[in-house]
Structure formats: C-alpha cells, structure tokens
C-alpha cells in the first residue's frame, strides 16, 4: 500500500521521556509510502482514536502504523478504530516503542534511533499486508468445565442458567473441591457447607449440566468452537442410576481403616465410601486398592447388602467423547506437602518443622477438618497424637510462601486471613486455650478483612508474634516451638500442644499435562497463564479456553467466584453469536508450485494440511498437492519454514513481509 499513516504515541510520558517523539515524527515522514506522520499524547484514548480516524478519511490512507505499546495491548483497539473508518483492520501494524524501547533504554538518542528502526520495519511490513476478512467457523454451543470446586460450580451454573449445555468433569467422587472441606469461611465465619451445598445440589439437578465425577479429561482435539474432548469416566463400581444412597453398603464394609483423602488423613473411611455427607452425587464409590473384593476377590458384603443391586465389581473405565465449543479450567489448588522429600531438587521442604514426623504438626486444611462439624472428630478439636484437647496452639504463616531459597517466591494471599479465623475457631472451641501466631506481615486487604484480624487479636486474645519459627522439636509430649519476636526484640519459645502450618498454595496435581493438552501456557510454578494479567485475566492464549479460580494463581473464595462468573461471561459472549469468526492469519499453499513432498503434512501440529489431487475435467490426475484446511489451521507457520520450494505462505507473516522487515534494517 502506498498511502501509509504513522501515528506516534507519547503514552503520557512513558514513551516521550526516553524517545524524542517530535524528532521521530520528522524522520518517519520521509519513509517511502508514508503520507502523514504525527504524534499525540494518548493515541489509544478517545481523542487519539478520533485523530486517527480523521486522518484515515482525510489522507485516504490504505495502511497504518501505530508506534506505541505492545501489540498484545492495543492492536485490537487500533484495528477496530481503522475498521470503523473503512480501512481493513489487517492493514494496521504496531511498532512497540514502549515496552521494547522507552521503558528499557534510557539513552534518548539510542532509544529514538531504535524507535525509528522499529517504525521503519513496521512501515515496510504494512506496505506488503493484504486486506483480510475473518474466517467464519461453525460453533458448538456447549461448554466444558474442568474441576468441580467452587469456581467450577459457579462457572457451570452461570453458563447453564444462560441456557447452554455444560459438561462438568470432576476428578474426585464428588464436586465441592477444597471449600467443601472447610469449617467456616472468613470474614463472616458463615459455615462453608451451608453456603456451598445448595449450589452443589443446584448443579446436581440442573437440566443443562451433565456431571462426570470421578473422571478426567483424557484428550482434547479440534479448535475454538469445535473441540472434541475425550473424558475418561473411571470405574466407580457403583451404578449411580440404581443406587438410592441408603448407606447400607458403606456401613457393612469391613474395611474402615483407609485414610480419608477428603479429611487429608485426619480421619478414616471404608473401602466403599461417600467422601462427605453432603456429597453431590451422594452416591458411594469403591476404592479399588482398599476393597478386598477387587484386590483379592474376597468379601463383597456391600453387594449383598445393596437392595438396589447397584454394585458391579466388573465395572470398567469408560471413554466418552463430548463436542464442546468452549472450555473453562477450574482445577483449583492444593496445599504444598512440605515434608523432607520433594518432587524436584529446587524445593527443599521444611524438614525442620517436623511435618510428617511429629503427629501434632499439621497443615491448615487438616486443622479445618479437625474443627469441622462433618470432620473426623465431629467438630471437637482433638490432637491427632493422643486425642487430647490442645491448650496451646501455634499457627505459623508463610510456610513455603515468600521464600526464594527453598520454597515458592510468591505470597499465597489467604493464609493471614484463615490463620486469624483459625485462632477464633480455636477460642470458641477451647475457651481457656491460648493461640499463638508467627507472622511476617499481616495481609488482609479485602472488605472487612483487617477488622476481622483485629477482632481475632483484640477480642479472642490471639498472641501475634512478628517473626519466624526456626525449629520445632518434640520433648515429653510437648512441641517446643523456637522462634523470635522481632517487635519485642527477643527470642520466643512456646511449648505447644498442636502446631498448624499455613503452607504455600500450589496448583492441583497434573495441571501441567492438562495445560499441554489444551495448548495453554503455565508459569514455573504450574499456575496457568492468563492472556493478560490486567486486561484479560480469565482468557488464555488458546482461543476458546478460559481459566478461573486458584489454578490461575493463589486467591480466596470471593475472587474465585468472581473469576468463575467472568469466565462464564466470556463463554456466553462467544455463544451469543451463531458462528465464530477466526483470525484470518492462517497458511495457504500455492498448489501450482507445490512439489507434493508433504513435509508440511508431517510438520503440521494441528493436522490441518491434507494430501490432495488436482484432476482435469476428464478425471485424469494432473498433479498432487498439499492443501490447508482453513478451519483447523492456527497459523503457526511451521509449514512455511519446512517447505523447500516456499509454496506455503502464512497470511499476516508472509515471506514478503518478513523479508521486507529484515531488509529495512539494512
């Protein structure tokens, strides 16, 4: 195109502080094909965009370069502005002179020279861009939600209430996630079961929600709007359509010794069990390793006792394929198991706290189970070692969090709040008990959060010590907690009956493999990468895949629920249209030039290229060629690089455009 407009943004002073924007504008006016070149303080603002649209009309521009921030930030904004003025959006390119220039180079002369180069490259590229129109792709208006915790439940309910079918897949035998295991929740101390169970029941009975519990996502194929998800429904050995939930089987089961995962090992359960009373579906599942009938073929009492004949020892895993248009990942978190042995070398664990060796050193979720009414001790706080009521309890914050040396460097955000909650629960249960909390900083930034912590300290007499605990040893039934109180300026030694560690919040197990199946990025800790931390927190770089809740980063229940509704909102936006429009920047093959070596067919990660034949009207084979399926191609461009004769081309990054960019640096 030969009528190019270059618009240079000051970005307030983010750019203009280190890039001489006026001198830059002068230089760029001489670039071949540039018709107008101007600067403005906030190009992405309303007046900024109006200035652009005015120039498009006035100068009859057929190409545009905006020199401002990263394309990931505002490319869509400027493309929309151009489109509103009749200029094809794909004739708009951006030069990143903020993140890649003014923010990182403080020598004005060098930064301005670099900005000029970046603009010259962008102009060279845009002159060879083609006017493109989005590709229209049919849409399956069904959603898949992975993870049945509070976030997954909320997302599923929102989407289902909007009238779309939802497939909810939960790994555990029942939905409810970590929240189901809590006793009360901060800052209102309302009972976790009471506020969650109605939503779980709603999920169980919702006509639009198809619930797969005790199931995993095996494989995901296809692309936005047309995913084909294979779900592995693990063998439950109980036919939930027949079972009435009467409980005869789990009462009859002789093996009551298996440690209950739901109680994090604090309590025991039988081989055939329902994780907790309010489970949805309230149907038992047989633990294949614990059931002697399945392992050694002896017993089968539960089957005898079952009036409905719902138990079937021959049950097999089942693979089910579901067609969905969008996927919401809500796989939640787990607390870091901080014993000595760790899965990778960098994490050294906290052997010095004796977790795993001293029975009375437990983590916060285990404490939640002990004080929970549906817990193993029926709500009475009893020490796991001897069942005595602990008179002195020590809560330790930041165990493994905010620790670059041997733990996670991030703050797990909710520990300060639930530690305060735990001191209150402890006070209400053991009136003459004394709670101690070791902390570094109290982080209570939510609504009524700080007031809640003040109440724990002032009314419930919790003793807060600002300092870290160095070591915990066990001497004659007492846990000697040695720490320091930096405000008092002297070491502190407490003889405690029970120690509760607020360990780091980490993503649930297996989230990396799931992310790879979904082509979603994740960071070094395994938290899923959102598309943009501020502007697109619930979207991911894989079109049609959304994230919410703790799988994306440590957060509390209100935030998880808010994110779940946000993700559901995004899905509903997608489903509001009859079809999906896809980015047209996909590959195509010049079938006259293709030598049919099919290297591209092998290389394509999406199997989007097929072997085709060109025949004349009489059906005689003229030649073979490779052919791209526009619906599947995601535009990675690997086929272009492996094609020897360069018959493959990728719109948006064509060979002419990329070579023009490199050559403009000459």
């Amino acid at each position, binding site marked *: 195109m030969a009528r190019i407009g270059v618009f240079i943004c000051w970005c307030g002073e983010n750019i203009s502080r280190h890039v001489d924007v006026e001198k830059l504008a002068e230089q760029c006016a001489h670039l071949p094909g540039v018709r107008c070149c101007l600067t403005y303080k906030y190009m992405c603002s309303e007046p900024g965009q109006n200035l652009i649209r005015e120039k498009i009309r006035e100068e009859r521009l057929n190409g545009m370069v905006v020199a401002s921030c990263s394309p990931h930030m505002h490319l869509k904004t400027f493309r929309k502005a151009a489109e509103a003025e009749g200029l094809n959006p794909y004739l708009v390119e951006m030069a990143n002179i903020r993140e890649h220039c003014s923010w990182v180079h403080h020598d004005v002369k060098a930064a301005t020279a670099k900005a000029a180069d970046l603009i010259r490259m962008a102009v060279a590229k845009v002159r060879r861009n083609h006017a493109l129109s989005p590709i229209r792709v049919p849409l399956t208006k069904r959603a898949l939600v992975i993870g049945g915790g509070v976030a997954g439940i909320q997302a599923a309910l929102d989407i289902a209430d909007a009238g779309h079918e939802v497939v909810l897949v939960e790994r555990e035998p029942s939905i409810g996630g970590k929240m189901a295991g809590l006793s009360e929740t901060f800052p209102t101390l309302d009972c976790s079961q009471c506020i969650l169970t109605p939503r779980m029941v709603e999920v169980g009975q919702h006509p639009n929600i198809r619930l797969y519990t005790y199931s995993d996502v095996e494989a995901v194929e296809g692309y936005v709007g047309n995913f084909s998800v294979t779900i592995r429904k693990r063998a439950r050995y109980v036919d939930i359509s027949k079972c009435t939930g009467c409980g005869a089987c789990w009462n009859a089961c002789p093996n009551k010794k298996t440690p209950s995962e739901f109680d994090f090992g604090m309590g025991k359960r039988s081989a055939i069990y329902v994780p907790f009373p309010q489970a949805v579906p309230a149907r038992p599942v047989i633990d294949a390793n614990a059931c002697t009938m399945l392992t050694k073929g002896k017993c089968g009492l539960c089957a005898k006792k079952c009036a409905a004949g719902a138990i079937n020892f021959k049950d097999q895993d089942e693979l089910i394929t579901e067609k969905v248009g969008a996927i919401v990942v809500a796989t939640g978190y787990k607390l870091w198991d901080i014993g000595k042995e760790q899965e990778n070398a960098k994490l050294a664990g906290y052997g010095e706290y004796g977790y795993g060796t001293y029975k009375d050193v437990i983590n916060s979720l285990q404490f939640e189970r002990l004080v929970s009414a549906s817990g193993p001790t029926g709500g009475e706080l009893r020490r796991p070692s001897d069942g005595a009521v602990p008179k002195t309890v020590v809560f330790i914050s930041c165990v493994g969090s905010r620790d670059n040396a041997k733990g996670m460097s991030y703050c797990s955000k909710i520990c300060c709040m639930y530690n305060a909650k735990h001191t209150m629960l402890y006070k209400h249960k053991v009136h003459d008990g004394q709670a101690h909390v070791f902390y570094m900083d109290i982080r209570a930034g939510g609504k009524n959060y700080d007031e809640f912590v003040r109440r724990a300290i002032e009314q419930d007499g919790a003793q807060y010590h600002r300092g870290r605990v160095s070591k915990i040893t066990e001497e004659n039934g007492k846990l000697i907690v040695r720490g320091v109180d930096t405000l008092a300026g002297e070491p502190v030694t407490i003889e405690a009956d029970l120690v509760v560690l607020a360990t780091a919040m980490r993503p649930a197990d297996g989230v990396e493999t799931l992310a790879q199946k979904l082509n979603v990025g994740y960071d070094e800790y395994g938290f899923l990468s959102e598309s943009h931390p501020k502007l697109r927190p619930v979207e991911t770089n894989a079109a049609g895949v959304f994230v919410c809740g703790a799988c994306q980063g440590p957060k509390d229940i209100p935030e998880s629920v808010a994110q779940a509704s946000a993700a559901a909102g995004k899905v509903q936006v997608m489903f509001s249209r009859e079809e999906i429009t896809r980015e047209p920047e996909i590959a195509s093959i010049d079938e*006259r*030039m*293709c*030598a*049919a*070596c*099919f*290297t*591209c067919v*092998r*290389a394509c990660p999406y199997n989007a290229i097929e*072997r085709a034949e060109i025949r004349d009207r009489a059906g005689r084979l003229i030649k*073979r060629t490779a052919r791209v399926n526009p619906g599947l191609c995601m535009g990675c461009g690997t086929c272009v690089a*492996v094609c*020897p*004769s*360069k*018959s493959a081309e990728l719109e948006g990054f064509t*060979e*002419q455009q990329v*070579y*023009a960019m490199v050559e403009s640096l000459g």
Partner: protein
Amino acid sequence: MTKQLHKVCRELLESGKVQVIIGYGQKDRGQPPHPVFITSPEEVEGLVWNDQCVANLTTYLTRKEIRALGKPAIIVKGCDARAIVVLQRESQIDRSAMVVIGMACNGVGEPRLAKCAACDAHVPAHVDITIGEAVSEPVDPERRYNDLNVFMTQSTDERMDYWQDELERCVRCYACRQVCPLCYCERCVADKNRPVRFSTAPTLKGNYAWHITRAFHLAGRCIGCDECTRACPAGINLRLLNLSVARAAENAFGYRAGLDPEAEPVIGSFSTQDKESFIK
C-alpha cells in the same frame, strides 16, 4: 556383468514389463559413458557397464520428459539406489511402477571418486534385480566423514577464507541443482522473486546464500552420491557441505538418508527427547 545386463534388459523390454531402460551408453570410446534411454530391444547392445559409469540416473525419474516415455527400468549403483528410497518416502515416484536393476560396484570414476573410499553400499539395497557380486561391509562414521573431519580441523577464519575463494568462482549455472535427484521442485526457491530471498546474480553474497539453501535442503536427505561435486564446472568441493549436514543428522538423530523406506524423515518431524547443548 554387461552381458547379464543386456539379457535382463532385453527380457524386460520384450516382455513389455517396462517401456524404457535408463542406463549408460558409450558411443564414442574416447568419452566417458553417458545416460541413454533404450526403448527397443535391439538397442540393448548399446548399454555398457564399467567403472566409468559415474552419473546418478535416478535424477531422470522425476523429469516430465522421461516420465512421458512410460514405465522405466533404471540401472543404479549402491549410492544411487538410496535416492530411490528418499524419492519414494517423499512421494515423488511410484516405486511399484518401475524396475530397479542394482549393479554391484567396487567404486567408479578415474581417478576413483572420493565417495567410493568410504562406501558401505557396494551391493545396492531395495532393488528388484541385482547383477554382479561385491562385498560391502559397514563403515564407521569416523571414516565416512573423514574428509569433513580433516577440513574441520582448520580454524573458523581459515574455513571462511577457503569458502570465500571457492564460492567466488560459482557462476550459478545450477548444475549442482539440476543433476541432483532430490532437487525436483516445480520451481526452485532460487527462481522465485516474491520476495527475492537471495541474490540471483553470482555475487559472493548471493552464492553464499544459495549454497547454504541448497545444502540445508539436503539435510537428512542427501544420499552422498556426490553428483553435484562432479557436475560443478568451477570445481567447488560441495561434498564438504553435503557431508556436514549428513554428519549432523547422523550425530544428532542417528539418521542416514535413503536406507530405510519406512524411517521418519528428519525435517518435518521431531522428538520431544531431541538432545541439544546450544540453546541457552
């Protein structure tokens, strides 16, 4: 062996199994044998076989002028035969629609070509008919890439100077491309101008980019028949470049081109376990 060859070829033509024999002829004793296309049984006497039959005839299998002659029988040495395996893997030829006559060979060329010193394919593989006997024992990579290893003992600057002298003589006659059985593209990237990826004029800059492109397009494909080195009128030792990419494929992925028709080609496929030590 020549008589045996004549007998086999006459039978093939008379039986109508093939319409053309792609072989070597030598009309005028003074000049080395050259490719011939025998279409009638009487002409079979024109076929010769001696240690001067250096050309790799498989380059004709992808030519439209030769395909027009009908179903071919082709005479190949051990090194040439490997090109058929690669062409088959890249779906350029229909292996079932040709008869491959493999000639046992103990080295060709006067003086003996460099490739024959480390040849482990004296008896051609994956052929339909084999004529003559020879013993081919495996050659360890050390010896196979000896020429390259010797060359690589020079320093980077010495090598750069060497190639600047060599590639300056290249006049871009593209004999190296036209003679190579694996250069079968409809229109070579060198002949495309949207965009011009490297200069088509024989400037040193254009020659460097051209020979890099040609050699890299043979990565994991070059069978080492060295026709390009023989055909180059400027006497550029292209063998070193081919050995370089061949050795790289063998060291990194244990892959040698043209040995196993089922093997997954190197370029275009990958393994998550590929080892490398240069990516920081």
